[in-house]
């Protein structure tokens, strides 16, 4: 057999140089995008109809501020209550108990199947269906009741509407999360004597969170903007606030810009929160943890007699 010969790499015996691929199309694209962005900004910034001074003035308006607070409070309350209800619904849906899973199925079917705006207006007008709301013990005369219109304010109607609707959507997300957890995790937990409930709370749900959080952040952002629907029932949110203002001064576009700026600010802050939350619930699913790496380095050092 003849021996294989090999040529030296570079002519002067130094290592060959590595030349990264040039992305010319990317540069051309970037220039085009920048140009278009410049033209767009110019047409908006120099447009007298935008009334930037009005925008700036109302950005810090008290009424707008109250609107933001209402929007935030509504979003947080409905998201928290909706998620709790959703978790219950998801566990019911996955239950072997046919009654529970059917009830959950029917709930989700109804609340996903009817428009959110219809549900909202329905709750606001509940008095038309039930003029009084009461509790009582059946077959006895013990009861108490109040006028529906006293209980169901615009805010309460909004909380009811968004929470019940959000729960229907969120429960499907939670269900997907629960089902994404390997069945072995459940069996391992049960085999150590945990009850089904303990297993769900301690082992399954914490791991399901990894799958649940990203679409939940999506839902939260969606809900934040969907709360603008309460403008239909004069709910006092951010959109209602700017509508009330432009109904008087007719500066429609500048005030919609004000609302949009604030929505963007809140969503941006929420996105940062999402990033940190995802990192937290991803615990154990990366190969990197400072504690463990430190332990490993220590044990390697020990094995080599400290000669590192």
């Amino acid at each position: 057999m003849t021996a294989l010969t090999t040529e030296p790499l570079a002519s002067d015996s130094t290592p060959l140089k590595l030349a990264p691929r040039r992305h010319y199309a990317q540069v051309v694209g970037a220039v085009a995008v920048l140009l278009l962005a410049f033209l767009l900004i110019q047409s908006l910034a120099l447009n007298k109809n935008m009334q930037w001074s009005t925008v700036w003035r109302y950005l810090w308006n008290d009424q707008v501020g109250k609107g933001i607070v209402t929007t935030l409070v509504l979003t947080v309350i409905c998201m928290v209550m909706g998620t709790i209800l959703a978790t219950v619904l998801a566990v019911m849906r996955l239950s072997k108990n046919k009654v529970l899973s059917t009830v959950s199925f029917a709930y989700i079917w109804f609340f996903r199947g009817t428009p959110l705006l219809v549900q909202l207006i329905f709750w606001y007008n509940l008095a038309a269906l039930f003029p009084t709301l009461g509790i009582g013990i059946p077959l006895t005369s013990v009861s108490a009741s109040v006028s529906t219109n006293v209980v169901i304010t615009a805010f309460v109607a909004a909380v009811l509407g968004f929470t019940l609707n959000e729960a229907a959507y969120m429960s499907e997300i939670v269900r997907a999360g629960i089902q994404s957890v390997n069945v072995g995790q459940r069996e391992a937990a049960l085999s150590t004597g945990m009850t089904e409930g303990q297993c769900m709370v301690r082992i399954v749900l914490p791991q399901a969170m990894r799958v649940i959080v990203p679409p939940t952040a999506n839902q939260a952002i969606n809900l934040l903007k969907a709360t603008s629907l309460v403008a239909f029932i004069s709910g006092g949110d951010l959109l209602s606030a700017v509508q009330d203002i432009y109904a008087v001064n007719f500066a429609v576009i500048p005030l919609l810009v004000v609302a949009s700026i604030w929505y963007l600010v809140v969503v941006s802050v929420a996105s940062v929160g999402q990033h940190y939350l995802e990192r937290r619930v991803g615990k154990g699913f990366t190969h990197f943890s400072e504690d463990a790496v430190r332990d490993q380095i220590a044990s390697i050092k020990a094995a080599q007699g400290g000669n590192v």
Partner: protein
Amino acid sequence: MKPMVEIIDLHKSFGKVEVLKGINLQVKPGSVTSILGPSGSGKSTMLRCVNHLEQPTGGAVKVNGDYVGYTRKGDVLSEISGKALAKQRAGIGMVFQRFDLYAHKTALENIIEGPLRVLGQSRSAATEEAMTLLERVGLRNRARAYPAQLSGGQQQRVAIARALAMKPKVMLFDEPTSALDPELVGEVLAVMKEVAASGMTMLVVTHEIAFAREVSSEVVFMADGYIVEQGDPNLVLRKPSHPRTKDFLSRVL
């Protein structure tokens, strides 16, 4: 002497497929029983019936004198509550083929979870015992590692420690080395030998013939949902009498 585990005419079907067709087995306290057989013979299903991860379709399993998952009233076995079943399971340790350590918890947290939540131990007492167990399986310096940062062999050793932390009366091993790279099998078998030597009653579904011969006091050979042969490992493994056992051993040895 009363058996620690008693399997009485156990039947199990999945839909129309009958996987266990009447299993009878008695396991002495402190003994190690290896369960061998071709895949699909019902070994794992039988083991999973012992702690009621699978619900039998007929027959019963008794552990330490109690019917698992049932209470007997006259000639009727009535299903017990989930809470009562959990209490029974706490006394039956199990080690799985895929380890199934809680992925979001460190090795130490995996071990103390049961003692904290089920036995109601204090965190300091549970942690102290867990560290002793980690020492026993040779992983004291990996206490803070997450399962994803451990090798398969290390994960399985933590899983054994997790089961031991509940101070079970019986330990079930469902093919504990089948998912491991060949060079990692030895470290897990070594830990299992040590557990056996400590007097633990063990039921082991395995393909490790050498382990079965060396460590077990009884070998059970299953095929097609029946126990076809059982007895002293030296006898069953050296001079099998049933044709299915002979056939299986000639393939794996």
